[in-house]
């Protein structure tokens, strides 16, 4: 957590600070997960939490993802605000059943609120191989009743997390573990909640729109700066929330630029790019000068070895050149 002397904070510190802020202010809010206590979580997001909040609120779970997610459902129905931390997003597969069948549809079936946050570090670039590098958002985007939040900046991380904790619905909060210690922001985190379901135009431009989220935001901005040297003006839209999807902001941007590329780290087939491209064509077809292009991971599992992983996950030259190609076509 940031100390008073610090003038900047990381994406990871923003998440830790938001958790502490809510733990301080709401006794109904608790955190359960594998090794979140004495160990401080696999990435040390909750370092020091056990000492500060005690074992009543910071709970080391047995290795039981199904049991934990189901426990959260029962606790939420009994009036608490549970947060489940999954060590790696890859392990959420073990809790697929309670998330889909117990948690996601309970409100629609009964009218009872199900305020749960399921937090998980996801994504590649850490050379962690096919079962520690997955992007899970589209597995769950298909399920009615879930909200899916994927912050891309240290500035957004705390506000989106606080909004997720205070939401009366189940929220899946995917943290890009590559960004944890690589991103920083000035000052200290703001605890003002950021409305879920609202995209953010992080860079304005007039020639082409890049729709992206999570780590893709930084790749898109870097490409935009590179292309600006050639006189190509790129607008970057950070979705922030995958579901609900803010197609209004995306469509407004595309109506302005007439061209669009969707960029994400998950595999291309049936990925968010497919949905967003279809929505753009529904909302802004007559404004488009070119077909919507997708930049995404290859349709393979994520490999371990650096040259192999780099060949699968979108890299900067490919991103820049694809945007240039669509902008100039």
């Amino acid at each position, binding site marked *: 957590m940031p100390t008073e002397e610090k003038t900047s904070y990381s994406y990871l510190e923003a998440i830790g600070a938001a958790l502490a802020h809510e733990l301080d202010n709401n006794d109904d809010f608790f955190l359960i997960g594998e090794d979140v206590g004495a160990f401080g979580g696999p990435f040390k997001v909750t370092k020091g939490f056990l000492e500060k909040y005690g074992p009543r609120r910071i709970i080391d779970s*047995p290795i039981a993802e199904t049991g934990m997610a*189901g*426990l959260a459902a029962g606790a939420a*129905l*009994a009036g608490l605000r549970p947060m489940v931390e999954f060590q790696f997003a890859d392990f959420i597969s073990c809790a697929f059943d309670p998330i889909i*069948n117990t948690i996601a549809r309970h*409100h629609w079936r009964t*009218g009872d609120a*199900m305020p749960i946050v399921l937090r998980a570090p996801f994504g590649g670039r850490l050379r962690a191989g096919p079962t520690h590098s997955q992007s899970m958002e589209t597995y769950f985007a298909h399920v009615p009743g879930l*909200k899916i939040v994927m912050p891309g900046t240290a500035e957004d991380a705390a506000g989106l997390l606080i909004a997720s904790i205070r939401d009366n619905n189940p929220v899946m909060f995917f943290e890009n573990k590559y960004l944890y210690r690589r991103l920083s922001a000035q000052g200290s985190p703001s605890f003002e909640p950021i409305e879920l379901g609202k995209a953010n135009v992080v860079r304005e431009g007039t020639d082409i729109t890049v729709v992206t989220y999570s780590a893709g935001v930084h790749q898109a901005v870097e490409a935009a700066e590179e292309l600006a040297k050639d006189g190509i003006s790129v607008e970057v839209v950070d979705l922030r929330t995958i579901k609900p999807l803010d197609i209004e902001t995306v469509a407004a941007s595309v109506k302005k630029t007439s061209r669009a590329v969707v960029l994400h780290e998950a595999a291309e087939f049936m990925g968010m790019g497919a949905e967003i491209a279809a929505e753009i064509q529904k909302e802004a077809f007559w404004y488009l000068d070119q077909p919507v292009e997708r930049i995404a991971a290859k349709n393979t599992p994520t490999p371990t070895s650096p040259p192999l992983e780099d060949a699968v996950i979108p890299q900067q030259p490919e991103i820049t050149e694809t945007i240039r190609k669509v902008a100039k076509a």
Partner: protein
Amino acid sequence: MATRKRTSTAPEKDSTKPSTLAPPVEKNLSAEVLAALDITDTSMNPPASLEGRDHELLKKLYDGVVKARAFEDRMHSMYRAGDLLGSYYSGNWHEAISVGTMAAMEERDYYCPLHRDVGGHLMRGMPPEQIMGSFMGKSIAPTGGRDGTLHYGRLDLNTYNPPSHIPANYPVATGMAFAAKYRGEDRVAVAICGDGSTSRADFHESVNIAGAMQLPAVFQVQNNQIAMGTKLSMQTNSGSFVIKAAAYGIPGIKCDGTDVIAVYDAMKEAIDRARSGGGPTIVEAVTMRMHGHAEHDGAEYVDPALKEEWGKRDPVELYEKRLIEAGVISEEEAAETREAARKWAIAARKIAITAPMPDPTNIEEGVYAD
């Protein structure tokens, strides 16, 4: 890279070498494990004595099993009459378990039952026409027709409506028990599943978590000899479900599920222990499934001898006979109670049948809570 070929990793067989299998490891159980083996089996005992029992409770149990049976009878006839959308999951021979369990609970306790627990739901206050409506897709069903059949709990009655993935109610009950402990509330969560459910991760993970956290939960297994078409011997080699408690370091009680008093006693002991901070218990109640898995299933695969043997142990008839013999109720009172229950179930059917179907215009609303 060339396509890799699949190669066998099996070593060449060399019959001249001795077996490398290690000799069996001696099973040394620690003193803690031995001390934790707290298993009681009353399932083969003669019927629990009525002596010294509170007559109010005995009559409450009788009223419960009679109403449950009347409801079951009505649902069987409604299925045959084509009143229901799909099938019906009969609770015949489970009445004593449901009713004994609910009688041992307080109203504030959480009830997370499964499909053969109509008796418990009725006792908790679920209107019978709402349960019928759930099997008919009617607007009066607790989910208003969005979900159906056996998925009919109500949070305002502290009852949970489980999804189809049994025993998905087990982890939920663990969470409710967790919340009670977290807030220092005097509440216990009771979760119920069948013998087949014990093979799933939900069962193991929940009971294990509840044991590790010493949560105020009771996990009941209704052993009715068969899970759809899979008999016990194919479900597990453990033979009994109560002994699984030992592996989680919690107590277990096995009782006769056709004896409502025996079920009440077992559940009361487990619930009292949970309420006083003694942690969870597994209660196994043994009965027989006298109908198919659901009404569309003729259950030809069931050993007729098994059905004949258990057929003599009707939990409602047996209990009624005992109450009359002990002078708790008269034959006339019994006949009146049964007739009143029959009329009550018929009246509920009328309400359910005349209730409107739900309005589809708002189907996209309510996916998210405000």
